[in-house]
């Protein structure tokens, strides 16, 4: 199989879906510009032009509403935000309408399968309002599906699933993954929502992660292996629906759980995974659950603060050692995944 970068996989999935389904259109601020939303909308614009790849005014609230109306009338909108933080301006249409449309009108009048992509921009001092990962926020609301692809194959597969399914979807992509390469099927094969993936098998501790944290967990697992600890990394792929089975089976096997996220702990993804384990396999746990998440402050800009703020592989290693009853290790510091990124944006 050939390899693509994460951004190429999204671009290819978009183009293939648009070729197969005339109803799909892309809407977002600057989707037609040279950078093409990190390259992901460029080929679609070159192929389909401004009738189907539409540069929107800066109007996130109304754009989300337009998408609902367009979908109600049979179109298939793919709305793109180069920062997921801009989604907060679209909260009302997304939460009060998109998520609830089918149900509120009785369940039999059709839904509004709007697909919304939001990019998380961690690093280079993105700061408090340009680096948030709001996947759990949207996963809170019944009626939406929320996915966090970690690999190029899933970036394409989950997008294809979103663009061919009947449910509105929010896809959260971490900017630091765009240059990642991996094998990607040539055909637009959907990755189903709610089916997790064992990113790395192991037997001593389970690390459940989403998006960027899957890679941090895999790097952590390599270091842990040097200490003789075998970590199993579970990539949930989607937060809603959530593959409870794969999480619980893994914890039943390892007896230990670390949950790693790029967002805050309170009421978030890590809390949900811990709750699922507490509900279904409480007796499997041989140690208290550990959560790897953001410290309870907004994201700072200053480099040392930013480095202290974002958890990574080293944080996961420490958490795994703790649940395994091992003392903190003198392990070499791991470089940040975004090392080498050049500013400004």
């Amino acid at each position, binding site marked *: 199989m050939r390899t693509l970068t994460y951004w190429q996989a999204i671009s290819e999935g978009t183009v293939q879906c648009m070729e197969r389904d005339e109803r799909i259109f892309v809407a977002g601020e600057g989707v037609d510009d040279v950078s093409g939303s990190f390259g992901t909308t460029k080929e679609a614009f070159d192929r389909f032009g401004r009738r189907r790849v539409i540069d929107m005014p*800066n*109007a996130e609230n109304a754009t989300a509403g337009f998408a609902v109306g367009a979908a109600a009338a049979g179109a298939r909108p793919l709305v793109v935000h180069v920062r997921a933080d801009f989604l907060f301006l679209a909260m009302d249409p997304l939460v009060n309408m998109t998520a609830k449309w089918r149900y509120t009108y009785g369940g039999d009048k059709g839904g509004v399968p709007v697909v919304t992509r939001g990019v998380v921009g961690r690093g280079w001092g993105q700061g408090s309002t340009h680096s948030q990962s709001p996947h759990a926020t949207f996963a809170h609301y019944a009626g939406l599906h929320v996915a966090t692809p970690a690999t190029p194959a899933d970036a394409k597969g989950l997008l294809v699933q979103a663009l061919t399914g009947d449910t509105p979807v929010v896809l959260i992509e971490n900017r630091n993954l765009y240059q990642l390469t991996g094998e990607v099927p040539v055909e637009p094969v959907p990755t189903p929502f709610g089916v997790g993936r064992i990113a790395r098998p192991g037997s001593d501790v389970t690390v459940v992660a989403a998006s960027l944290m899957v890679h941090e967990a895999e790097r952590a697992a390599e270091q842990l292996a040097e200490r003789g600890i075998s970590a199993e990394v579970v990539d949930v792929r989607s937060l809603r629906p959530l593959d409870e089975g794969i999480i619980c089976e893994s914890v039943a096997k390892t007896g230990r759980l670390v949950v790693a996220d790029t967002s805050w702990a309170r009421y978030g993804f890590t809390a949900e995974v811990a709750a699922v384990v507490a509900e279904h396999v409480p007796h499997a746990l041989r140690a208290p659950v550990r959560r790897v998440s953001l410290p309870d402050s907004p994201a700072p800009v*200053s480099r040392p*603060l930013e480095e202290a703020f974002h958890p990574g592989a080293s944080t996961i290693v420490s958490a795994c050692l703790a649940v395994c009853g091992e003392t903190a290790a003198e392990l070499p510091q791991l470089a940040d995944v975004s090392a080498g990124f050049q500013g400004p944006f």
Partner: protein
Amino acid sequence: MASTRARLIRDMVRIRTVEEVLADHYRDEQEMRTPTHFSIGQEATAVGVCSATTVEDWVYSGHRSHAPYLAKGGDLEALVAELYGKEAGCAHGRGGSMHMIDQSVGFAGSAAILGEMISVAVGSAWAFVRAGEQRIAVTFFGDGAADEGVFAESLNFAAVHRIPVVFVCENNLYSISSPLSVRHAEGTSVHGRAAAAGVRARSVDGNDVFAVHAAARDAVEHARRGTGPVLLELATYRWRAHVGPGTDHDHGYRSKEEIDSWMAGCPILRAADALRAEEPDIDAAVEAWRAEFRQEIHAAIDRAKALPFPDTARLLDGAYLPAAH
């Protein structure tokens, strides 16, 4: 050279010099790790407007924040330290380029999400009225932020309640790479929309600092008298890329010719031309100011680089008051 007009030129030269030197350092060092939006070429808007306010008046801005901050009298060293992420920065390294603040001179804050400070300024001005104060609030934003719904909502509320706020739209024709033509319908204007909402509105040549200053004095007086909000739409142009220190004529969304023609209409050159008859030594003065400010900014950069970073043990400070920890 102490005339008001000469002072306006001097203030523009200071902002231009500071930003050009900062941009060079930003590019060469890669140490100011914060997305930065330079106002190079747009100095007349900030200077013309802020010079018409008092220190009690508040000024807010969007992401393109350095020029309004400096024009309002914001502390240069605190700005530079903020860009380098130092504890001595105006936001102690927490906020970066898009979160400038200097309350001592009435620069009330800048923000990174489009349109946010439009409604916030209305709220502050509303509070001034409720407190029986004579202060006004000014808010800088771009034509791109005027796309946002909050702009219409803010105009409406300010007009209904005659709130002493001056809306300043720096219309530089683009939102990143999207031209006005794909965002605003032909035959409409930002000032036209304000007028339709019941806000007194004017369109002014935003690269003519004297015209901007005169219009701003009018607007500030109108707002302060309690006769209602005013909007100024100021036509200007960004010389550099949307974000970062570079140029962008090769990005394909605007031509080199267009950029060159606006650069020929440089607000500093135009103001000096206009003043030359009255102040024959203006060109020598501009050169002297450039040298003075180059020294000032180089010294500020040297000092900022030597300053300490924030203590990571204090990462959480400020999320809540200490008592809430």
